């Protein structure tokens, strides 16, 4: 039975010794939603994300991802989520095709599925001529789009994107967001962290973390109204200015 929510967090907490990295955060994310997870460096975004991905066990609280418990069902969560980090995570010394086959392969796709998916993906990205080239020789924007496509290759229910657009130009970023919209329209839940406030505007809803806790959570439109701001930038500064923790 698949619950109505893709991610449910209740008082999720992670403590390292005396340090409350993540302090009782609660939120819910709907299927097909693009959920922006914002916060200054050191606010606890990465720790929270690691807990939701099953990489780190929470100290207390509850969380369900794709209908599975982060305490007991991490293996099942792993099968149902995709992940992409700011480092692109592709092997530069493998070709485009080999990267696709490798990542598809470790998610247990059958040969037939792999073949179909690979063709579809190459078609979609328009990479027919580059398919047999080493990833290292591709421009950054292409690597990034390929990286995202690889992260959703196994048709996960939720995709976690950790600052996916770091270091690329605005045009490529826009194209990248088109891919994200396509995936969201197909029903994939997108959980994305970013430092770019213009990107925050693309999200359906955003949360802003300050010092390990969620300070604000709403649609970009509502947040701007609430804080009487003209842009997300202003909203973010108003909230993050109060942070006591130094950025790491």
């Amino acid at each position, binding site marked *: 039975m698949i619950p109505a929510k893709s991610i449910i967090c209740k008082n999720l907490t992670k403590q390292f010794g005396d340090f409350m990295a993540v302090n009782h955060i609660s939120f819910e994310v709907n299927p097909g939603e693009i959920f922006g997870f914002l916060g200054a460096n050191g606010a606890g975004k990465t720790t929270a994300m690691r807990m939701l991905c099953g*990489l780190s066990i929470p100290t207390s609280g509850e969380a369900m991802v794709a209908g599975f418990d982060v305490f007991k069902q991490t293996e099942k969560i792993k099968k149902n989520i995709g*992940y992409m980090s700011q480092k692109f995570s592709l092997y530069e010394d493998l070709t485009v095709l080999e990267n696709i086959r490798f990542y598809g392969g470790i998610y247990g796709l059958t040969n037939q599925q792999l073949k179909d998916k690979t063709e579809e993906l190459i078609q979609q990205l328009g990479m027919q001529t580059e398919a047999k080239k080493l990833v290292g020789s591709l421009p950054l924007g292409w690597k990034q789009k390929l990286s995202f496509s690889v992260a959703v290759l196994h048709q996960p229910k939720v995709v976690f994107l950790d600052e996916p657009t770091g270091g690329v130009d605005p045009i490529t970023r826009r194209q990248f967001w088109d891919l994200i919209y396509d995936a969201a329209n197909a029903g994939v839940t997108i959980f994305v962290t970013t430092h770019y406030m213009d990107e925050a505007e693309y999200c359906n809803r955003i949360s802003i973390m300050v010092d390990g806790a969620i300070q604000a959570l709403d649609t970009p439109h509502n947040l701007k109204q609430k804080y009487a701001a003209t842009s997300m930038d202003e909203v973010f500064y108003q909230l993050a200015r109060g942070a006591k923790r130094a950025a790491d």
Partner: protein
Amino acid sequence: MKQFLIFVRKEFAHVLRDRKTLLILFGLPVVLIIIFGFALTNEIKNTKIIIVDYAKDLATQKLINKIESSPYFELEKSIRSHQEIEAAFREGKIKLAVVFPANFNTDLAHLHQAQLQIIADASDPNTANTLTNYLTMIVLDYQAELMQANQVPYRIIPETRMLYNPQLKGAPNFVPGVMALVLMLVCVMMTSISIVKEKELGTMEILLVSPFRPILVILAKAVPYLLLSLLNVITILLLSVFVLGLPIKGSILLLFAESTLFIITSLALGLLISVRTESQQTAMLISLMGMLLPTILFSGFMFPIENMPLPLQLISNVVPSKWYYQIVKAVMIKGLGFSAIWQETLILAGITIFLILVSLKNFKIRLA
């Protein structure tokens, strides 16, 4: 299982596409064998010596002929008085001087005992030692001939035999050493770098988020290096048999089994390093300083462990290459079987299990 094979194939692609790594993998053993085999020999040949012969009789003449015909010595000149010896040493031309006293033959004939003096340039003690040994061997050889000719039954003939290596060749010692060195380098450095590389690239995160089990990541990374290392063992053995003419006396199967054990030890070490480090440079430095240096210093292949002070001898016990070196020497050169090396094997296996447990524990902590 299919996932595992896909992963192994990816690892092979990494290794085979990296020309530099390949060059290190397969060039290193060849270069080391050739360097140690031909350039860095600790045999000393054609040493210039001088002889002061006060006796000038039959016995000394025969002995001098013997010394001259040996490949180790070359007679620089015969001089008349021993005052000139020091001058010759100071010039640095000669490494050894032999002095026969005036009544050498008479003493030998009547007292059945004669003396001669060997003076060596001990500023390089190892060379001096070796040269003195060579010369003593020649004298003993002559003495043995003399005994046989005269059939004196009551004389005790001092017999010195150089066991396992009668020609005192350098090769037997260094081939096992090179094997330990190469396997250590390939396994420890390559594995640790390849794992740390995934961390640096950020691909490790993706792998940990995937349903692919972390332990399988490690195993899949180990497989190509295990196979390549075995290939290296074959290369070294082929080189040593066909290029250096050093036969393998013991069981080849046993040699490979023990090598596999040592490779696993090294892989475990590489894993431990990679778990504790974050950058490729650090991993490489630790592998080189922390692993290679002890292998050279403490395995006994360059410097005899018996001559070290006790604390260093104790340290040498935790260096896995020391045990592997002893095992290979026993099997390859002495031709001994498993019964002779079971203790060393047990110690090596113990170290391996310890390393695997420690690195797995660290690996898990990092995941939590």
